[in-house]
């Protein structure tokens, strides 16, 4: 138990808590609006921000944050224009983000930045300043979702239930993309950009069988995310496997158990 007294382990649990709460809150909205791939899109684009930071010599997470916010706004604008199919847009952003990242890292040859840290996470190396920023952003996102809960719910429903002569949903959609970008940003250093999608989607798939309301689904998704995060992180401390890998595999195990329980016990 001594291992839990180390500061880097405590930071890891707190960072994991932030990632699980943010993913749990946004996950049901992401699944309901069929935007699961959007987290992957933003994660790839964030790598361009990491590369940009390498070229101009500033903190990688600062570069990722700036690029994520700009990309969220651009993605929203292109989605509401409805000029291109969303899956085609996703491919443009993913390939564009990776190409830029590759180019930037080539230019900044001398920088000792590892893409792997942001692709697959590095939760045990979270610094105090990164943790503080994660907690502040999580609290802001949480308050925003509480404040705009019902308007946000409306934009993740089928567009057939639109309200005549109302343009508000478009701005709610922008808010949704910005919140998703924040979630991806927190995910970059915790479970990794490529794995944050699992933390967004799988808790929802587990929780959906046990509730009749969206609010309870969201609360259950947060709980599933937290339990998974703590279980996976604890296991990773005692076996020599990357934490993000153990966390996501634990989540998939829970999904399998839940599916079996639903089929044979419920």
């Amino acid at each position, binding site marked *: 138990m001594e291992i839990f007294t180390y500061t880097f382990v405590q930071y890891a649990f707190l960072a994991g808590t932030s990632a699980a709460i943010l993913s749990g809150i946004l996950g*049901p909205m992401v*699944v*309901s609006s069929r935007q699961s791939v959007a987290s992957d899109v933003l994660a790839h684009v964030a790598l361009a921000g990491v590369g940009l930071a390498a070229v101009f010599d500033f903190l990688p997470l600062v570069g990722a944050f700036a690029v994520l916010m700009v990309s969220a706004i651009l993605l929203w604008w292109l989605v509401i224009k409805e000029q291109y199919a969303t899956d085609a847009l996703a491919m443009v952003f993913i390939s564009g983000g990776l190409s830029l990242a590759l180019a930037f890292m080539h230019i900044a040859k001398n920088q000792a930045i590892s893409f792997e840290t942001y692709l697959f996470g590095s939760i045990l190396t979270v610094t105090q300043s990164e943790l503080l920023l994660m907690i502040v952003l999580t609290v802001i996102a949480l308050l925003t979702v509480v404040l*705009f809960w*019902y*308007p946000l*719910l*409306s934009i993740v*429903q*089928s567009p*057939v*239930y*639109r*309200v*005549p*002569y*109302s343009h*508000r*949903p478009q701005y*709610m959609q922008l808010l949704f993309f910005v919140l998703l970008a924040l979630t991806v940003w927190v995910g970059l250093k915790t479970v990794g950009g490529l794995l944050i999608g699992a933390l967004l989607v799988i808790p*929802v798939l587990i929780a*959906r069988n046990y*509730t*009749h*309301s*969206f*609010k*309870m*689904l969201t609360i259950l998704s947060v709980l599933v995310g937290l339990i998974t995060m703590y279980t996976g992180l604890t296991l990773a401390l005692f076996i020599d496997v990357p934490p993000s890998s153990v966390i996501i595999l634990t989540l998939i195990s829970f999904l399998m158990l839940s599916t079996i329980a639903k089929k044979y016990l419920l």
Partner: protein
Amino acid sequence: MAVQNNKALITAHNIGKKYDSNIVLYDVSFSIAEEHIVGVIGPNGAGKSTLANIILGFDTDYDGSIKMKDDIRIAYIPQFSNSDKYVLPLSVYEFLRSSANKYYGLQHNITTTEISQALEHVGLSESQINQNVYSLSGGERQRVLIARALLSNPNFIVLDEPLASVDYVARSELYELLRHLNEEHSITMLLISHDVESIVSICNEVLCLNKTLHYGCHPTKFVSSDKFTHAVSHKYKI
């Protein structure tokens, strides 16, 4: 035109719509008098939903003009989508609150009491407020959509194929509900439907549409005429 413009709640003048070279609507002009129920019938691809989208403000890229009275308050009742088996749970309360709040043009956020009253008005019980809206029967879901429309206190409702997926008994009850809302609450309606028999029985007048309006057609004769199968309609006074 049967309705004098000064009594009309809404007047459409020479409405036209095309996608590239494909004409969806042309030269569509009509008026809807206050407190009337006006039906629109026509085959698939006749432009019925396109016309509804233009009136509802969802589609602003069209030719012609639409004039509305200043005090008009529009609500929309679509067909309840139930084809998605992966849809996530959403309570009746959440469904109603998510579209009836001040971000959607209402003066205030809807209260639980108002939601309960709206549900009662459409024949649903208060106990159903916490049920998953997607687990309700087809008729109950459509009643929830009517309650959703009523929460915005409308004086004009556009209904686009609202009862297409509802069984015969529920459909009759829902038509009675629409008639009640029209007669007792003075709500004007534009009702788009394939159900010609029901539409004729409930509507004050029917627009026969197949890309343009065919005046002088009787609705029941219209559906069996070549104007129905080949694009051509008009308003028939019942």
